[in-house]
């Protein structure tokens, strides 16, 4: 019989082992992701259509409320509904993955109590559903942008994967922290929908960052919100240079998300082994 490696179980240490273990469990990551996706629309009549209906309805209501009623202006040369839909697309990706990551440990409590695997698998696999939804909303965006407004993405499109990746990193860096805290304090479950709701208005979704103006004294605080550059950047990739995008906000996002990521991983790793005692 072939002998596996020796595993040492003790109260601390084993950092290198942990990351190797994580790699060894990549198949589990894949299977859990698949589980979440296939369970997602079970026993619904409209199924995947929900991923289209929600952003579309939001876009229509936003356009009516902010453009027709409140007479907000978007960036020059860009149809207002398209600007809103672009914002919704990337924002929904962020908020979905963020919410799912934050709940990932609590939702999988039965696994936490009964089997061992690096717990990071759970927040990582929680991204899958959000990503599939994003692909659907994104197709909808392309369909409306090209099919209805005849608005083709330009060469900026090559930067799109970078912004998507950065959105993912940002949602993980905040979600991971909340996921670990959620195990101990279930208040997080209440807090998150609220954060997402507030975030929707704090971020440039129904309006453009250009309306605040770069010379405003609020601007430097405004761009500390890491979502600002992600939303602006996404629109810039899809809608061309007409869309407002300030590279400086991007640096701020990278710094904020980077710091948040380090703090979250350290915190998560520290709390990980005691999840089972609190769940």
């Amino acid at each position, binding site marked *: 019989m072939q002998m596996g490696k020796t*595993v*040492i*179980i003790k*109260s601390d240490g084993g950092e290198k082992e942990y990351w190797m273990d994580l790699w060894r469990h990549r*198949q589990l990551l894949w299977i859990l992701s698949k589980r979440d996706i296939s369970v997602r629309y079970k026993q619904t009549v409209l199924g995947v259509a929900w991923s289209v209906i929600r952003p579309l309805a939001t876009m229509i209501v936003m356009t009516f409320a902010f453009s027709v009623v409140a007479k907000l202006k978007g960036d020059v040369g860009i149809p207002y509904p398209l600007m809103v839909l672009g914002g919704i697309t990337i924002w929904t990706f962020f908020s979905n993955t963020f919410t799912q990551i934050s709940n990932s440990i609590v939702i999988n409590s*039965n696994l936490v109590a009964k089997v061992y695997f690096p717990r990071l698998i759970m927040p990582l696999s929680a991204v899958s559903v959000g990503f599939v939804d994003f692909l659907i909303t994104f197709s909808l965006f392309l369909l409306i942008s090209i099919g209805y407004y005849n608005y083709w993405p330009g060469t900026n499109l090559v930067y799109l994967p970078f912004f998507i990746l950065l959105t993912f990193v940002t949602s993980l860096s905040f979600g991971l922290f909340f996921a670990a805290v959620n195990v101990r304090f279930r208040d997080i479950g209440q807090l998150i929908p609220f954060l997402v709701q507030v975030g929707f208005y704090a971020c440039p979704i129904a309006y453009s960052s250009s309306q605040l103006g770069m010379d405003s004294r609020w601007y430097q605080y405004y761009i500390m919100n890491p979502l600002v550059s992600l939303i602006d950047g996404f629109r810039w990739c899809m809608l061309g240079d007409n869309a407002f995008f300030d590279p400086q906000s991007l640096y701020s996002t990278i710094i904020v998300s980077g710091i948040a990521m380090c703090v979250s991983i350290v915190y998560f790793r520290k709390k990980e082994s005691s999840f089972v005692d609190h769940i």
Partner: protein
Amino acid sequence: MPVITAENISKKYVIDHKRSKGGSSVRDWFSEQMENLFRRNNGQADFNDKEDFWALQDVSFEIKQGERVGIVGHNGAGKSTMLKILSRITKPTTGKVAIRGRVASLLEVGTGFHPELTGRENIYLNGAVLGMTRTEIKNSFDAIVDFAGVERFLDTPVKRYSSGMYVRLGFAIAAHLEPEILIIDEVLAVGDAEFQKKSLGKMRDVSESGRTIIFVSHNLTAVQALCNRAFYFEKGRLMDEGDTTHIVSTYLSRVSKTSLEHVWDDISKAPGNERVRLKSLRLLPDYIGELRHIDVRTSMKVSCEFWNLEDTAVLNLSLHLYAYTGECIFNVGTQAQEFSKGIIEATCEIPGYFLNDGSYVISLMIVKNTSEVVYNQEEAIAFDIQDYREGVTWYGKWPGYIRPQLNFSISQTEPVVND
């Protein structure tokens, strides 16, 4: 060569008397912090709120390859905590364990099953959760389905499965794991007799293939049948270890000493009232040979002494025997008789080969004039009857409350001769 070496394992839990287990709220945490702040200012420590609980204390052992180790002990003795540490679900507070080889732990049947997914999808999901690779699951897929007997329902969501099917599928997947070390907790307690037989057979196969097994169960018959070595845990400590038969009988003799005898020497503190007071309650088993525990063969006597405090009274004693499920197995009463003030003794004999294995509770009633209950001592004596079989290769739970040996004959009446 040892595959598992545990050195001085201890595990501490902090019991918080103020807060119930599970997720708490920030408000609780915050108010607690505030309280602590003020306490500290007053120079008082909060001894009453938090308490250290050592689920395991200083446990060391070695397990060699191919050994089949059974872990026995009361509830709360630390067995499950030990398994959790070995399966890496929780970490020890101090000490360390070195494990060589691939471990699969089975602390529950069907861990991670998703009710909305079909049987087929759940086989892959559960397999992956238990640490199988996709190829391994594919290779044993047919065997799993066959073992569980769920061919027709493979594409039905498991939420529509009967609980029996659910358990069968869960066990079937686990049974086809091929780890070097298998850790199992109580999973045999589920499923019908037919399935228990199947799963015990499977576990024997696994053990005979030279793999190391660690098995926790309250089913001592199964432990004895499967394991060649046993650990006895009590209050977080590894009290004894060795040959299974020896350990099981040590364990059982400790169990039975706990509550078989109650004696009250001081009449004023004895249970009762102004008319009668109990003096002693005893269960006296007639142990078989060297054994110091009750099994299905053991006959026993229940004896009760009480003071009658009235000058004259027509009294009789009524005894109820309940199964731990609460059902009354029988009720017997003595003849009623007139007694004067003094000590009265009654004895009831319970024969061997009468009660099945299980836990039982006796309650006693002192009755006056055959109708008026003077005193009722509920749960007077609790005891366990262990299983005993010979000439049988089946180790599942023997059904029924009673286990009589009746004249039941079998013979061949008409042989067919082939020539």
